[in-house]
């Protein structure tokens, strides 16, 4: 074990910024992170031991509890629930003779749930030691149980268990692009500058002065093109990409970083998984273009290797997409060989840029850009105080551009075809197309790309949804709409979305949907600030209280109060939006709450009469006088 651990440490040059990557490797190799391993890692990285322990404790996929050969984590998004994951969890527990949430006595297996794994179009899904298995059925679980009981190493499990479909249903300019690797890059770098030659362009002069590479078309021209396109961030917030890049370019610093946010954790979203599987070159073209525009460059001895400061681009890949790591690394290697990455990209002297992939380890909050940067630095993924913003003080306090996978892909399209072309697609305020992850109650779940402005009812018709009760747009942190609103449009000016489009038909109970989302937020809160840490826990406990038949009007009022507190004072968007699903469904589907409520103003969460049961048993009484009367309810 010591030897293997030393190999892992050496692979990461014992860099403190690579702590999370080291721990991911340790977890995968030893199936847990033992206390003595924490001590060894801490001393190798010259970090306080408790800091390493604190990082292990933060991420869902790092386990410091006990060794366990097979950790089977069922995705627990509402779509998995709708497809019957609860019965399947019980089924597997029985097959394996394990209790849910407890490692078996022999250390063989552990069965629990995890947040949405991004396989909503082919659920129910689970992760076995981090590797995703979609489309679960009893038959597939029989196979899995046999493999576990036979102690077959996961690497030797049949490949078809892990086969994930792309389910591309509708392509537009992005998914349907015919560009070859590097095309967008060449188009941008070697186009004739509209300003009449790069060397003449005063706007580019600073770049040349700083010794940045001089292509035919300068960085400013590319930046202008991105600004002209009106491209806005696809991660949900919709910040104008050109302005972000420009602010980063203008931030004074020796080093600038490009980071791709592929921590797609919003329940119901899986479009980045498919883009990473099918559009990796377009994405890396986009990141490289960004590097050119903002002036990120490789340092001394930039060989594209790990650490040493030679890598100035990061792809932060969510742990749930572990299986994409090797294919993506192969694409990166191929691009280095083709001089699309590394030193002197496309033969352009001084254009040095490389991309390194960092894995996440099960923390939704790391999708928030400053938390993502903390995680990239090997720390607990806690959102930072802003200002300063990442564009001026990001990775290692250097200017950093963080964009979503889809944003970089779109930027590459803009570079290839021009800003005016891109802006002509979509609506006046929302340029281009949006890739939607459609799942839930529909005949054809999967990936749908539309120009912005498409109506919800159009998407519902295309995906074969019938008797639709509600659609959750952009996941739990987005908005839940009912039938009268299906004429609304997917666009920043109407229904802004990061991509999730979850369909519920009339057989669904929207209270249960909201309860599932409340548990999600409580599980994923980083715990930094009081309102979110405590408020999300109170919200999920209140929803459980209502579900158990003990809810009252007082509880509904308390939820509204919680929403106000979270919006006023939570540290980041997670807290701000945590009550949205509850309030949206309360507003539109109030009866599904009301029929659960007691006709009282207030009822405690505990059962008063039930609490007397032990006393009744001890005294041998069960007469009317030994019970609390239910007068209050009458």
């Amino acid at each position: 074990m010591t030897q293997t651990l030393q190999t892992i440490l050496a692979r990461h040059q014992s860099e403190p910024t690579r702590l999370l990557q080291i721990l991911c490797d340790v977890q995968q190799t030893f199936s847990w992170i033992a206390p003595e391993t924490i001590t060894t890692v801490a001393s190798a990285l010259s970090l306080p031991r408790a800091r390493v322990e604190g990082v292990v404790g933060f991420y869902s996929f790092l386990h410091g509890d006990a060794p366990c050969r097979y950790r089977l984590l069922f995705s627990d998004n509402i779509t998995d629930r709708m497809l019957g994951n609860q019965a399947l969890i019980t089924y597997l527990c029985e097959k394996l003779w394990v209790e849910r949430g407890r490692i078996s006595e022999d250390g063989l297996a552990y069965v629990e749930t995890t947040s949405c794994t991004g396989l909503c179009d082919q659920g129910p899904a689970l992760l076995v030691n981090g590797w995703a298995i979609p489309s679960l059925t009893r038959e597939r679980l029989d196979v899995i149980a046999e493999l576990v009981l036979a102690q077959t190493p996961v690497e030797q499990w049949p490949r078809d268990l892990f086969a994930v479909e792309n389910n591309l249903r509708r392509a537009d300019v992005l998914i349907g692009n015919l560009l070859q690797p590097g095309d967008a890059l060449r188009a941008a770098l070697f186009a004739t500058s509209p300003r009449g030659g790069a060397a003449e362009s005063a706007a580019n002069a600073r770049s040349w002065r700083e010794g940045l590479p001089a292509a035919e078309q300068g960085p400013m021209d590319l930046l202008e093109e991105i600004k002209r396109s009106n491209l806005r961030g696809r991660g949900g917030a919709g910040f104008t990409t050109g302005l972000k890049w420009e602010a980063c370019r203008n931030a004074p610093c020796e080093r600038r970083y490009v980071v791709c946010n592929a921590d797609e954790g919003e329940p119901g979203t899986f479009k980045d998984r498919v883009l990473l599987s099918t559009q990796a070159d377009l994405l890396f073209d986009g990141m490289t273009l960004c590097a050119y525009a903002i002036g990120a460059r490789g340092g001394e001895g930039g060989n594209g290797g790990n650490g040493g400061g030679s890598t100035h681009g990061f792809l932060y890949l969510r742990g749930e997409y572990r299986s994409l790591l090797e294919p993506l690394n192969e694409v990166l290697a191929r691009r280095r060989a083709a001089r699309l990455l590394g030193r002197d990209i496309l033969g352009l002297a001084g254009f040095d840029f490389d991309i390194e992939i960092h894995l996440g380890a099960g923390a939704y909050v790391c999708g928030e850009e400053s938390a993502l940067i903390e995680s990239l630095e090997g720390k607990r993924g806690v959102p930072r105080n802003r200002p300063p913003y990442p564009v001026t003080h990001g990775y290692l306090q250097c200017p950093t551009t963080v964009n979503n996978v889809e944003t970089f892909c779109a930027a590459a399209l803009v570079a290839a075809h021009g800003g005016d072309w891109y802006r002509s697609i979509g609506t006046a305020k929302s340029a281009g197309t949006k890739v939607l992850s459609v799942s839930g109650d529909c005949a054809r779940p999967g990936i749908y790309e539309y120009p912005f402005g498409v109506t919800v009812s159009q998407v519902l018709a295309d995906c074969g949804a019938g008797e639709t009760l509600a659609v959750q747009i952009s996941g739990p942190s987005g908005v839940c709409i009912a039938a009268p609103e299906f004429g609304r449009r997917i666009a920043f000016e109407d229904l802004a979305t990061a991509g999730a489009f979850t369909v519920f038909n009339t057989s669904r109970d929207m209270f249960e949907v909201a309860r599932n989302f409340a548990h999600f937020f409580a599980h994923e809160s980083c715990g930094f600030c009081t309102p979110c840490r405590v408020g999300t826990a109170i919200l999920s406990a209140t929803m459980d209280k209502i579900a158990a038949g003990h809810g009252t009007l007082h509880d509904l009022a308390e939820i509204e109060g919680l929403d106000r507190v979270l919006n006023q004072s939570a540290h980041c968007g997670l807290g701000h939006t945590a009550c949205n699903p509850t309030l949206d469904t309360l507003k539109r589907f109030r009866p599904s709450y009301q029929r659960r409520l007691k006709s009282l103003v207030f009822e405690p969460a505990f059962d008063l009469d039930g609490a007397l049961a032990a006393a009744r048993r001890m005294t041998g009484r069960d007469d009317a006088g030994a019970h609390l009367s239910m007068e209050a309810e009458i």
Partner: protein
Amino acid sequence: MSDTFILDGDDVAFVPGQSVLQAALCAGRYIPHLCYHPEFKPHGSCKVCTVKANGGLGSRYASSCTLPAQAGLEVESATEEMNDLRRTLVQMLFAEGNHFCPSCEKSGNCALQALGADLGVMTAGFRHFYPDRPIDASHPDFLLDFNRCILCQLCMRASSEVDHKHVFVLSGRGISKHLIVNSATGRLVDTDIALTDKAAEVCPVGVILKKRVGFAVPIGQRRFDQRPISAQALDDAPRPSDTISGCAT
């Protein structure tokens, strides 16, 4: 002549780089706060110091300990809306931990208790969580009672920034977030904490207690028994007359 912003209708002078809370305290103006300590870099986790700030882009809520003071900024703090929020946040902290004031050694010296009293918090308001948090009495000089931890990170900041030791660190996430100590056994006795450490005296509640000095001052004569926390905080705040106060003059 220094720049000013407006706090509840009055001009407050500030030095560039100061946060709204820092400048307010310098000027003798109290904004309720809990995780802020004048000797450490503010980080804004308790959110008790939240204020409403009206600037160029409309109004927004922000932690005043981390909100940079800016000329012309209009800040609302002593309003019913903000004090309602603060009461709820204090209630949340009481519901989250196990706080039994009558039996607590820190009663009368506890910032959480004092803040609750000052804001008029009468009950926890929410259902108590009753977390299971074992105490650590392993160290000959200290008792750690995690039941009372409000996760303000002051001990953490003191230990790393002043003592350069990292005795206290956070682990877990969400409602399971908790304080841990820097030792392989997880026990305080195996860390290098010392009685002279800054971290040993900075806890605003009753988590880090020195042994053999309990109840040296009788309840009723303690810090917040004499003056409310709002007055104490101003007594403790740096004054413009102090030579190294960092205050605007």
